[in-house]
């Protein structure tokens, strides 16, 4: 019974990972733009970025998904369920990633920037070679934690019909009447993926630390 359930629910692992990873990458890129905008010298750009981050964060993820999946087609913008899910989670991830980057940037002492300036490095080189590598190392654990959070949030995609883990678990629960077992299997899958992600993140973190020479 369990193997049967496992094999049917595990079909969803691919899409769960796909939606999570795509949203994390796209959201991460938009987040970079956002954090740049939030530090812009132009007050209006700063204001817009801050407003965007706050608006995204105060609306529940499920409301975002429904807004995009059911709302946007009114403008003849037909989206598949997977597209809608990725767009929704990317928007959500962008705001949270921007906050994570911000705290990473804050942890870099001003002296680093000043030193780079004193060495005659251009602004682009400073950001690319001095600030970002250090900030990334600080932000990595937070990014991994958020990635795991996003993985769990991605279960919401089942509500708009994306065939990921929770979707299949729900199907099995309805078909086999093994509600408890189906969702226990789904839960085990989520926890297993989270553990793997956490382990990888720790390995990367340790490697980075060793490279820089701390610990």
């Amino acid at each position, binding site marked *: 019974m369990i193997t049967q359930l496992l094999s049917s629910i595990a079909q969803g692992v691919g899409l769960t990972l796909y939606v999570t990873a795509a949203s994390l990458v796209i959201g991460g890129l938009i987040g970079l733009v956002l954090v740049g905008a939030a530090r812009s010298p132009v007050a209006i750009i700063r204001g817009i970025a801050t407003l965007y981050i*706050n*608006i995204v964060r*105060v*609306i*529940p*993820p*499920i*409301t*975002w998904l*429904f*807004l995009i999946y*059911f*709302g*946007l*087609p*009114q*403008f003849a913008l037909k989206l598949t369920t997977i597209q809608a899910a990725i767009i929704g989670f990317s928007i959500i991830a962008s705001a949270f990633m921007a906050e994570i980057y911000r705290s990473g940037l804050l942890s870099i002492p001003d002296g680093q920037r000043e030193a780079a300036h004193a060495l005659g490095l251009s602004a682009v080189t400073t950001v690319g070679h001095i600030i970002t590598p250090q900030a990334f190392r600080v932000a990595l654990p937070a990014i991994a934690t958020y990635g795991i959070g996003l993985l*769990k*949030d*991605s*279960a*919401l995609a*089942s*509500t708009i019909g994306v065939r990921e883990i*929770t979707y299949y*678990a*729900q199907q099995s*629960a309805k078909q086999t*009447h093994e*509600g*408890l077992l*189906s*969702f*226990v299997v*789904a*839960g085990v899958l*989520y*926890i297993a993926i*989270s553990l793997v992600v956490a382990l990888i993140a720790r390995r990367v973190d340790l490697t980075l630390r060793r490279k820089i020479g701390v610990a």
Partner: protein
Amino acid sequence: MDVITQWLDWLPSLGPGLLVSLQLTGLSLLFGFPLGLLFAVMASAKLLPLQWVSFFFVEIGRGLPALVLLYLMYFSLPDAGITLTSFTTAVIALSWNTGAYASEYFRAGLAAVPLGQKEAALTSGLRGWTGFRMIILPQALRISTPPLAGLAVLIFQGSALAFVIAVPELMSKAFEIGSITFEYLSVYVLTAVIYGSLTLVFLGLVRVLEMRLGRHLQRN
């Protein structure tokens, strides 16, 4: 202006939904926070089985997506012969979720109280429960209150999940209106505005609370 009149028309039917959302949040916090404190105390208990029980409930409550927890309850309880309304099921699942996250904050708060306080309580003759309740807990609570308040805001957002098991809360009401009028965009924007503005109000309250609790730390 069209949109505004539309929204005004919908508000009366969304209102009761919002009320259910708030009730759901309130009850989940009411049960979840004490549960979290219990888990936190059990995690540092001398008895090993107690630690295991706490670990089990906390890790499941935090490790599973809230949605899966909700479905787990919803699909498995009736099989076990327990039939509850979907509202009660949602309260149980969200309380578990709240308790698991809250236990971490309580644990951090308890750990932040210096050992000397406990020793001082002991030498003053306040042993066991009395010492815990009168000396340790008040100090721990002050430390864990701001993150707990933040958690409360998240649980309010999480209450929208109860939609999937047909609890008649704000999201369900919005979906209902959407499927009748086909004005999905408009009704979800309104829902987002309601959730967003209430969350902002709550976050403002959290900020005020944080400042009040930190007052004694601000000298001159």
